[in-house]
């Protein structure tokens, strides 16, 4: 027969068993589509391609700039831009898209649909496949394009700005959007905080009024670098992420390209195999190109994510873009070298002379290039 609880509690306490009070849970304001990084607590958003997120350290940090060096025909970099924007649509972020070549409406019509992990039904809801949805007209704000610029704009010298007119106007427009929509924290508490995704296509190309891509000694050699510097300043003061693609294969001056990379936070380069001799190389038959990680940012910490390996390749299968490590890349240089290779066994180790011998490790076996038949192995 159980005694009543209050009697069992004894004389030391009152009706409540303990004097501790549960701390009222603060309602954490979390922005949809973002998550904190495990390394340094930075707020991350996805770039739209999960294997790219993995390669750049978990995702894109809010307030940073991702630079994508375009491949030769601007096919895969354009696709990455569309994945970035599509991810923004799915997460409910605001979008800002600027393109000098294509109309932003056309780019938006071609955004990829999300992959549905539904085994039963592969149908994708109509609302998602058409991002320009009339029911939600303000989930996206398409801002900008430059087409059919009158010729005189290129000759107009802005005495009050070192930037050419298109870049100046673009920067001003971005600043206006950030201020007006309150991404820099200047709105009252009632509005839900959201992230702004900026997609800037093919900056530095001739269509933006910049001649850094078409001349060895361009007249505007500091235009793009000044723009990127100011853009990063804007990003740091607001809840926004930018992805900029640059046709780096057209920029002759390597020093300018180095500066552009250093002025961005994360920088990757795409090299597609289409049209090059690597297309027919049997080792690359599964892949469509190589991905080079040029720079990873150090944000609020001393050390950055150091990748395991730098041999990365990408492939596009059924509209899914994946990036993989290729250890086979190492063996390419070997197949091009003439001469037989010798598989080293443990009993060979004491016999190896201290000469410069190249070693190759494939599938945990060590190979060495046999220089001449008189090698003492």
């Amino acid at each position, binding site marked *: 027969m159980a005694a009543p609880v209050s009697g069992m509690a004894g004389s030391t306490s009152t009706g409540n068993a303990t004097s501790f009070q549960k701390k009222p849970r603060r309602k954490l304001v979390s922005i949809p589509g973002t998550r904190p990084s495990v390394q340094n607590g930075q707020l991350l958003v996805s770039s739209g391609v999960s294997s790219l997120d993995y390669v750049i350290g978990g995702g894109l940090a809010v307030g940073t700039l991702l630079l994508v060096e375009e491949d030769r025909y601007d096919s895969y970099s354009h696709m990455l831009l569309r994945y970035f924007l599509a991810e923004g649509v799915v997460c409910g972020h605001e979008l800002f898209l600027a393109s000098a070549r294509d109309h932003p409406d056309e780019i938006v019509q071609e955004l990829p649909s999300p992959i549905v992990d539904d085994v039963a039904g592969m149908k994708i809801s109509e609302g998602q496949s058409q991002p320009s949805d009339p029911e939600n007209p303000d989930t996206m704000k398409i801002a900008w394009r430059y087409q059919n610029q009158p010729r005189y704009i290129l000759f107009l010298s802005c005495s009050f700005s070192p930037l050419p007119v298109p870049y100046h106007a673009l*920067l001003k427009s971005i600043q206006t959007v950030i201020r007006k929509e309150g991404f820099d924290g200047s709105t009252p508490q009632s509005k839900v905080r959201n992230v702004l995704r900026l997609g800037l296509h093919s900056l530095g190309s001739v269509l933006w009024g910049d001649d850094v891509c078409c001349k060895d000694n361009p007249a505007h050699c500091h235009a793009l670098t000044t723009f990127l510097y100011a853009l990063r300043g804007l990003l740091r003061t607001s809840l926004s992420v930018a992805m900029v693609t640059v046709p780096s294969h057209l920029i002759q001056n390597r020093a300018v390209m180095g500066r552009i990379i250093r002025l961005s936070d994360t920088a990757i380069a795409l090299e597609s195999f289409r049209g090059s001799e690597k297309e027919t190389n049997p080792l690359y038959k599964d892949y469509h190109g190589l991905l080079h990680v040029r720079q990873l940012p150090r944000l609020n910490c*001393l050390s950055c994510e150091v990748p395991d390996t730098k041999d990365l390749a990408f492939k596009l299968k059924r509209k899914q873009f994946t990036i993989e490590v290729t250890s086979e890349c190492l063996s390419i240089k070997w197949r091009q070298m003439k001469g037989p290779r010798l598989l080293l066994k443990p009993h060979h180790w004491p016999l190896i002379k201290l000469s410069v011998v190249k070693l190759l490790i494939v599938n945990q076996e060590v190979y060495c290039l046999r220089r001449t038949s008189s090698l003492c192995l």
Partner: protein
Amino acid sequence: MFPELNSILNSTPDSFKSSDFILVSDRRADASFLIHHYLSFYLRAGCKVCFLGLVQSFSHYSAVSQRLGVSLAQAREKGQLVFLEGLKDSVGVLLQEDTSQETQPLSYVRSPGAGLEGLFRFVECSMRQSGDGDAGESWGPPVLLIDDLSVLLSLGVSVGAILDFTLYCQATMCSELQGNMVILVRCEEEDADDVDEEGSNLLQRGLVHQCNLALHVEGLPTGYCRDIHGQMEVWWRQRGENIYNQRKIFHFKVHDKGASFFARGTSSAVL
């Protein structure tokens, strides 16, 4: 502050050389961890620090310094640290319509051809104000830290104007006020084909000529390694009567809370 680097350079917050011009440079690597070291070093030593943060925001340096044990916000409130928020304020300067206030510190953003006089006036003004704290505290010798100077080249300022600026700063800070200067310069790869007349390599060569101590950070010549992040070359240049020209190379690895330096070939990954 990295204790191993202090022992390599033979300096502690209690005893360090004054009138020193230290140049930190890198090529295809990131030497900004050395700037964080010097920032926490001089703040711990009680010097009055003027920091020109041209590439990162204040919160970035503050977060890193927190891990190294120094609070930048407190130092700024007390008046020990003067921070120029170059990155965030430059947007406003670039986009504003009026052309007044030409000698603002960030006036080079709008008119890069006009030189860096505004920036120098800012540095001079903040350094000459030492001893004006609320509690009447007098700080140690003034220190100027710049992160990083080569970004001015990206904005269109000429190499000559930047070298003039550093010469003026050295004359004021090191010779007149007996303080120190630490500058970070990021260089590009050496390209044998085209001689870069207006490049950061030219700037780095000019600054190396002026400095007392040059720390140059590069990647390993043998390629990418996960455990050794790069090599640092320390070049003690001539100073006063003692003309000694000593160079040493160390390997380093950067952690979360510091960096470790070791002689070449003695990394724990190798041994």
